[in-house]
Every structure is written in C-alpha cells, then in structure tokens.
C-alpha cells in the first residue's frame, strides 16, 4: 500500500476511535455506572460501527459495479428482501419458538433470497447486466414494499410501532452472540471486498474494457454481489433500513480521495463506521431520554446532502 493511502486509513481509524470514545461518554443517564457504559453503550456503539461500515462498503461496491456513483445499496432489492423478512417476523409474530432471534434470522434469510434472485439475473445478464440488475432491484423493492404493507395491516397495534422503527432503521442493544455474528458476516464481506477492490477499478471502466484488461467479469460480479449481500443482510437484519449511509459515505470519500477502490473500499468501511457511530450518538442525546431512531437522523441529514451531490454530479456532465 502506498504511503498516502496508509496515512488516510490511519486517520480514519483514529477518527473512529474518537467517535467510539465519545459515544461511550455521552448518553441520557446523568451518572452512568460502569455497567451502563460497558453493557449498554459499548455494544450499541460497536453495532453502529459494524452496521455503518457494512452499509458504506456495500455502497462503494455497488456504485462501482453499477457504474453509477450515486447508487444506493438498497437499490438492488437486497434490503427489500431483508426488510420484508424482518417485518414479517415482527408483524406476524414468530417470537414463538426462536424468541428475539427470530427477526434477524428471518430478515437475513430474506436478504439471501433476494440476492439469489439477483445472482440468477446477473449470471444470465448479457451486454447490459447493470440495467437488468437495477430493474430487477426496483421491481423487487416495490413488490416487497407492498407485502410489507399487507403484513403491517394484518398486525395488531402493539407490533406496528416495532415495524415502523424497523423500516426507518435504528441501532439497538443486541445480545453478544448476535453482535459477534454480525461482526463475522461483515468480516467475510469485507474480505471479499478487499480481494476484488482492484478489479472494481477495472469494472468501473465498463464491463468490456474490464474484460479486455483480463478481468473475468461475471466471476467478479458474482463475488461482489455475494459480499454485498452478506454485508447488507447482516446490517439490515439487526438494524432495519438505515438509509443514506451507503449512498453518501462512499460518494463523499471519492470526491476527496479519488476513485481508486484499493483506497475507497477500506476507507468506506472506516468512514461508514464513523458516520453511523456519530449519528447514533446524536440520535441518543438530541431528544433525551427519548431515543430518536438513527435512520430518521441519517435521512434528515442525508436527504439534503444527496440533493447537493446530485446537483454537482449533473453539473459535471458534459453539456
């Protein structure tokens, strides 16, 4: 790794350490005990870091894969599948035999199901697989949304609040086992992402150019989708649909660091972690003791930022 790349990553890692430290020091309890900090704040902060990293890395991968710097990790429908699974588990019960573990499990299964569908599309894709992927994703999301409405209508009131929170996305306290599972899945996804980061530079040139330069594009694409599915599935299954992280973090990093994915992929992981840890800290204190769902905050900030970025992007295009 070149020296400047390493320097950037070290800086981001330091920023993450600071963000985590602040997150541990801040909260609605006035005189927090050690127990509160270690048992409640620390797991939450770690989860925020993992989810943020997962979403941002997945966003970076998909933006390259789809050759669209403003693509969102939710655009391919993987999140739709996860959300549908989560809502189904939440709204229709399912706490029966698996207890609290039911929701993340079913949500992850939903994410995998959606990914398999995309995998099939990607494998069959001819000259414009990016378009087929996008279209499939849009349709699948619409389909999942309608099923979510069905499930929510059938649910009774007490569950609806939970479903709402799920759909807008929030960080909560999870059991250590679940946290470890998320960490493992994220590590696998990140491993795949780092392995193929260089290939992304080539795929970003276009599928044929990448092919001309020696990349087995269908092979790489499948692996990238797998890594993306793992990270999005793991993130959404525990925290619901937190928006804008996967869209904005990699895009903004590209604006300041360039488009070399050997840097952008790890930088997105770190940057996403920082972003979400900070957002979650704010979400916890802004309306204390009530906790704002972090997805509401990311949408509040992310919406206008996205519009600004979009304007810049459009202005950049040749007349």
């Amino acid at each position, binding site marked *: 790794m070149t020296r400047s790349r390493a320097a950037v990553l070290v800086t981001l890692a330091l920023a993450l350490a600071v963000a985590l430290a602040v997150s541990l020091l801040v909260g609605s309890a006035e005189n927090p005990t050690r127990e509160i900090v270690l048992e409640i704040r620390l797991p939450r902060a770690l989860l925020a870091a993992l989810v943020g990293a997962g979403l941002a890395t997945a966003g970076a991968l998909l933006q390259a894969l789809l050759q669209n710097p403003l693509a969102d990790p939710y655009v391919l429908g993987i999140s739709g599948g996860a959300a549908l699974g989560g809502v189904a588990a939440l709204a229709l019960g399912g706490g029966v035999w698996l207890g609290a573990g039911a929701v993340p499990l079913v949500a992850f299964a939903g994410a995998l199901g959606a990914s398999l569908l995309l995998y099939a599309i990607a494998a069959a894709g001819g000259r414009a697989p990016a378009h087929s992927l996008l279209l499939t994703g849009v349709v699948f999301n619409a389909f999942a949304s309608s099923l979510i409405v069905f499930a929510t209508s059938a649910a009774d009131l007490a569950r609806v609040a939970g479903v709402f929170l799920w759909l807008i996305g929030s960080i909560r306290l999870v059991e250590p086992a679940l946290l470890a599972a998320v960490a493992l899945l994220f590590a696998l996804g990140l491993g795949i992402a780092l392995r193929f980061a*260089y290939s992304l530079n080539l795929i970003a040139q276009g599928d044929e150019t990448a092919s001309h330069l020696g990349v087995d594009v269908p092979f790489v694409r499948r692996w990238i989708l797998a890594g993306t599915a793992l990270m999005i599935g793991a993130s959404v299954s525990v925290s619901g649909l937190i928006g804008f992280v996967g869209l904005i973090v990699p895009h903004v990093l590209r604006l300041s660091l360039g488009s070399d994915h050997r840097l952008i992929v790890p930088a997105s992981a770190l940057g996403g972690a920082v972003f979400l840890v900070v957002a979650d800290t704010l979400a916890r204190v802004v309306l204390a003791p009530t906790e704002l769902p972090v997805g509401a905050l990311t949408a509040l900030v992310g919406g206008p930022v996205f519009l600004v970025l979009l304007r810049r992007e459009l202005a950049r295009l040749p007349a």
Partner: protein
Amino acid sequence: MTALVEARGVAHRFGANPVLRGVDLALAPGKLVVVAGPNGAGKTTLLRALAGVLRPDAGEVSLAGRAITDWSRREVAQRLAVVPQEGALAFPFSVREMVALGRAPFLGPFGRESADDVTRTEAALAALEIRELAERAYPTLSGGEKRRVLLARALAQGVDMWLLDEPTAHMDLGHGLFCFAWLREWLSASPGRGVLLVTHDLVLAARFADELVLLARGSVAARGAPADVLTAERLADVYGVEARIERDPAGRVLVSPLRAIR
C-alpha cells in the same frame, strides 16, 4: 508463420439479424491491417470476436495459434491489447490512474504495483506526450487527449498485439494523423508486433495500411493492398459513392469522394 490473431469462418447474428457471414481474417506479425466498411457492415462485431469478448455463433478465432476460448481472460490480456472507443466514464479517474490500469493483467489479486509497473506507466505517458496531463481527471479531456490516454494504456500493457476500434473517430485531422503515424512507428520498432484496426476513415486507412479488408454486409468484399482494393467500382459497389482514385508522387492512394450514386 503463425498469425498473431486469426478468424476463420466467423459468423454471428443478433436475434434474426445476421451481422457476420463467414469472415476469414488474419493479422500477420509486422503488419497494420485495417478493416473498413460502411456502417452496419459488422466491423465492431468482428473486432469483439477477435478480442474474445464475443463468442461467435460459428467459426473460430485463434490467438497465437491457439483457440481464443482456450485462453483465460487474463492470459488473453497478457498478449493482446484492445483500445476501445471512448465510452462514458462514470468515475473521475486521473490520467495516470487510467494508464496504470494497463498493467492490470500482470498484477496480483490486490493490485500491488511493482517498480517495473510504475516505470512502464511513466514511459507510456511520455511516449504519448501526455505527461503534463497526468493529474487531470480523464472525463475533462478533449477527444484527442482521451484517445492518447487509451493508447498510453495499451502501451503500458506492454503486449505485441493491438486491436483498435475506430481510433480516429471524433478526432481532428491533426490528431488522426498523429495516431496513425504513431501506430506505424510503434509497429516497426520491434518485430513480432501487429496492429489491427477498424475505421471509417478511408483516407488515412489507404495511406497507412499494409492490408485493407473491406467488409460489406457481413462478408469480406475485398482484401489486399489498399491500392488494389480501392477501385472506383469497388467503392461504388460497397459505399454507393462515386469517387476518384489517384496516386500521389510517392505512390500512395488518394481517395476523393465526389457524389452519392444511390
């Protein structure tokens, strides 16, 4: 002598539309072969088949004597460079980054560049005279400058066989001439090199090609030295254009289109 790249009986259709009907083509070492023809003649499809990214319905393409399907994409890229038409680039890579990508077929899985890779990249930038553009973002360049970057990338790749798709499209006279002249020079700098390019530009093709292959409606209408291929009858037949063919004092063919026939 084995051809560098060869096509035998290549045929392909898109849907119900036959685009190539049994084309034979060979690129011999030391030669500049130009494939020309009207729009829709199948030139780009042929090029993609030769590059190994399109699998034709019929016929065979071989690279260095072996069927191209027997090579992996990486192995192909270590022998053959393809210079595409521009294409839109969604990400603002710098010129240096673009050229450095030419080393991709030789890098390990994480894309670590050795000192040799860096040297070749810098040498390519110098050879195409784009050193001062190195830090500029590729999408901000003019058409001619972009073409030089793509040529530099192929040069950095360091292989002996080049396929080019419309290298002078959208380029002004000066850049077009530079491009062809540069290719000729590169070709003669070392034995065993070969260039095959597809173009619309008959004027430059006639001037620089060793062999001209005229493609019309998916088949080879004529092949040979430009002087032999470019006759008034042939141009009328293939392009529907009445043209005057002349020779300059050095014996090079000059084509002057006069008017449309059909």
